[in-house]
């Protein structure tokens, strides 16, 4: 799920954090989610760091949170889509000035689900991992691959 667009700067990541507080129990339970202000301060191909605002209340032990990484480009390949649950995902917390002090364990992490082809579409893929294209005598940029209608 590494994001090429984050590496080459053609896309960037956005994220948000909420603190989740549940009061009461049973049918009287009430869950409140409150936004914790902050911004993405570091992005690379497979990693995003969301830093809390200076004025924001910092994370507390024993507290529950909901972290949302928005509009993450999903994989292009059927093989990658089928093996999402095999990938290692790590959530960590800490202090930007120093580093991380808490990390999730891959064994305890809920696996990412397999991705699928959207309904009504067919997946067009190359049969090999690499493709050799001979430019021949064509002019530059003359080689174009156009998926047939209905594919994507």
């Amino acid at each position, binding site marked *: 799920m590494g994001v090429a667009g984050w590496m080459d700067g053609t896309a960037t990541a956005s994220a948000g954090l909420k603190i989740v507080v549940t009061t009461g129990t049973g049918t009287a339970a009430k869950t409140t989610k409150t936004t914790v202000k902050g911004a993405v301060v570091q992005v690379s191909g497979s990693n995003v760091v969301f830093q809390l605002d200076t004025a924001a209340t910092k994370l507390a032990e024993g507290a529950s949170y909901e972290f949302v990484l928005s509009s993450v480009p999903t994989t292009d390949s059927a093989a990658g889509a089928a093996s999402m649950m095999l990938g290692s995902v790590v959530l*960590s917390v800490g202090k930007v000035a120093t580093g991380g002090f808490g990390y999730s364990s891959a064994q305890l992490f809920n696996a990412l689900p397999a991705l699928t082809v959207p309904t009504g579409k067919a997946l067009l893929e190359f049969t090999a991992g690499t493709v050799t294209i001979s430019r021949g005598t064509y002019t530059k940029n003359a080689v174009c691959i156009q998926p047939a209608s209905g594919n994507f």
Partner: protein
Amino acid sequence: MSATTGGAINLSKDDTTTKTKQESVALASGGCGKSGQTTKKSGLGQVVEFTMKSPVPLAAAQFVFWEDKTNALAFAVGTIQANSVRCTCGTRSWNTVLTKESAGKRLKLTLPASLTPTTTEVVCDKGDLSCKVREWSHSGATVADMTATCFACDSASGSCTKEQSALTVANTGLGVARYNADVTFVFKQAGTNTVTALSIKDVAYQPNSKTAVGRFYYKPSTTFPLYGGFSDISYTFGSQTFGTGAICQVFTSSGTAPSAVPSALVSNCVVSGSTVTVTMASDSAANFHVQITGMDAWLASATNKIATGYVKSFTASVQVVETDAAKQYAMPIVGTTTASSNTPLATMTVVVARSLVNVMDVGMVEFTVTPKGADFGADGLAYISFPTYYNPNIGSGLRCSLYDATAKTDGDRLYCNVAWDYTLRVMGPATAAKKDAAFTLRVYGVAMNLHATAGNFGFGLTNSTYWDTDKKLVEFKAAADTTTGVWGGKLAIDVTSVTLSGKNLRSTSDITVAFTLPATTDTVTASSDFVALQLPY
């Protein structure tokens, strides 16, 4: 049979197997060899093959002999080194020795007890047996045409003569494959070998700049046969040192440089002082490049000749480098030609800062650079060597960017990739960073590790034109890393759910992670000010 007093008769079976010694079988025409080999009386690394076409299976501990039929001539070979003889019969091969007997007039093979595929008693089925002496350590003597023969004797007959091999069992014959006076081959050792020196190819240090830190690579060049587990190739590179932290890698060749694909032809590489020694993993030509990273700076030393080097097979040095200093390979020294090294400008300033530096963090390394030689523009290239406590690939999905330290935002995106292990190549910005003015380059996505002692980054600037022709830097500066991070994890974060807003590939999806911070004994995660998420590659 024995009787008891009660009148019963007990019968007991004899538990000793009755064995009948078989008569030996005569070797057929062409059963001993091999003729026609050109064995020289000088030079090293010669392979001499002895064969026998056995008319019967050969069993463990039996003996095969090759000897002068007249018992007058010796094979004129010195010590046959351990494991230097490779014998093959059928699908089985093994390393062994041939024992010299009768003052070198005959060579004896003792068949081993067990081989792979597993043997019981029969080691070689009826048919061809070949034993190659892979390092024929001739004595330097001429052997005129020797009419040699061969035969095999049973396991209790290590001193069996050819005459004894031909006797019948009734006449205390000892043979298995019987001596046949008409079955001979010619062994001849004469003439001299042309002695060739061990050579070397593709020797390069990149960047080819004195004081710079980069990689050193070369390709061994020898015409001698090499044997897996038994051949070493060693070179001493003048007074160029590699340091105790040097990392030796062996890659397949891509033209005149190493590829990025590790080679399986070498089993070990030892770097010591100025010497690099590789041990072959298989019987093969030296078709690979050796690359050293994490090494000392390039010295471009005046003592630059490769004056010491050898190929050693088994325990004998079979080839050495040129002894004539005028013909020895000379590594680059500082000069004005394309091939010579340069001395890059050293007045540039480079300061390193990092964030998220604890183990398991994917963090950022920042370089604040003031170039003195030239602007860092669209044609510019930066080569940054990382200390080897970083990962060889530095990180996954690296992103490089100029950084506006005043506005605290990223500026021009810079394309970067790992040029070779531990070395990042960064292409210059569209808008040049002027010389004599500081610019800040950030590398995001760096995998952080611990380090006992902070090492140096090597920061080099050049331009693509100069690099393409000369592989040199315009300026270079070493910059110290910051202090190590720590292993900060105490308790695993409790992730209670992970949900995706959509599950379509080639689309986008929001990833929602719900988690609870556990209470640690030292409240180490309290007051955390960031949340990071690493995605699978």
